[in-house]
């Protein structure tokens, strides 16, 4: 079992930080074995082929691009939907 890698990528703007807080909250609520990381390196967003911030990526795969969801529940829903393959 490998820990899930959660990354919030953004330019350091307030909405990016909000998504980071929500992601930490969601991971904690779900009791996930996950590393939550906050990345402000724009080049990493571009390397994923994306141009909007903030981004939430699970194991390097973007699941939220360009907006902050209305509630933590939405983030939880997304995290629950990730298949545990390869972990």
């Amino acid at each position, binding site marked *: 079992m490998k820990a899930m890698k959660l990354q919030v990528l*953004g*330019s*350091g*703007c307030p*909405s*990016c930080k909000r998504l980071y807080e929500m992601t930490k909250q969601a991971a904690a609520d779900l009791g996930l074995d996950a590393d939550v990381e906050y990345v402000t390196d*724009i*080049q990493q*967003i*571009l*390397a*994923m*082929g*994306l*141009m*909007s*911030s903030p981004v939430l990526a699970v194991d390097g*795969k*973007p*699941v*939220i*691009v*360009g*907006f*902050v*969801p*209305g509630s933590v529940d*939405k983030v939880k829903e997304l995290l629950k939907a990730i298949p545990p393959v390869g972990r």
Partner: protein
Amino acid sequence: MDIFAPFGWFATWLAAALGIVPGTRLWDAATFFVADTLKIFLLLAVIIFAVSWLRTYLPPERIRKLLAHQHKYVANVLAALLGVFTPFCTCSAIPLFLGFVEAGVPLGATFSFLVASPMVNEVALVLLLSLFGWRIALLYITTGLVIAVLSGILIGALRLEHLVAGFVKKAEVIDAAALPELTHKDRLDYAKAYTIDILKKVWLYVLLGVGAGAWIHGYVPVDFLARYAGADKWYAVPFAVLIGIPLYSNAAGVIPLVSALTEKGVAMGTTLAFMMAVTALSLPEFMILKKVMKTRLLLIFAGIVGAGIILTGFLFNAIL
């Protein structure tokens, strides 16, 4: 028929219920404030929701693909049009700019997009529609797009690629197949979250702007400002553009305010130029873009757009 008439009736009823005497200055200011605030917030909610829902079908990653291999003039026009649908906050300025340039979107088209995106957007549109009517709103949008297209073409023709920061061009072209799939519910959720987000950001500015506007409407004599900022005062337009540059974040409050100033004698072209400067030329955006382009390119960009806006102001002062 005016679908907003009920707001006027409500405002009249409320003012009467509060014991304000009809026909007084306070009556004018209060009814103006209530009716306009209600109208603006309703329009903002409906239009932001619709535009942000549409936008889920056209994220910048897809726009980039559309723009990357176009004929150059077509790319400028397309970039300006697509800019209308894309929200522009200073925090996404860099990824957008880099993403476009790295994928091979011509520099000129990238600038057309950068100009149109903040200048012609749904918040400005709503405020113009509700405070100035559809003719001025349409005029603003059209000239805004023309300025975006022409500035982009001009910047493209000047061949300034060497003024883009060195690290920008080394990344290879990337495919944007990685976007997560969205369901219908996701799109509606996004539109709802985005609408609430924007309303939270602008409500205070709108209230302050309409409030100040209402006060001016009720208390400042008509044509009071014509002496200082009428159509015959050539310096009014460049002056309006200069003070518009640092006012970016308050665009939502600035439009209600200037609508009241127009009523008191500020010429229409001056007003339009001022609003364009507030939205298109933003100091915080420049500070951020400075990280990815040389100051010279930034100054050329600001100079061309600023000149375009000033010309527009003069033009409309002359013909309106």
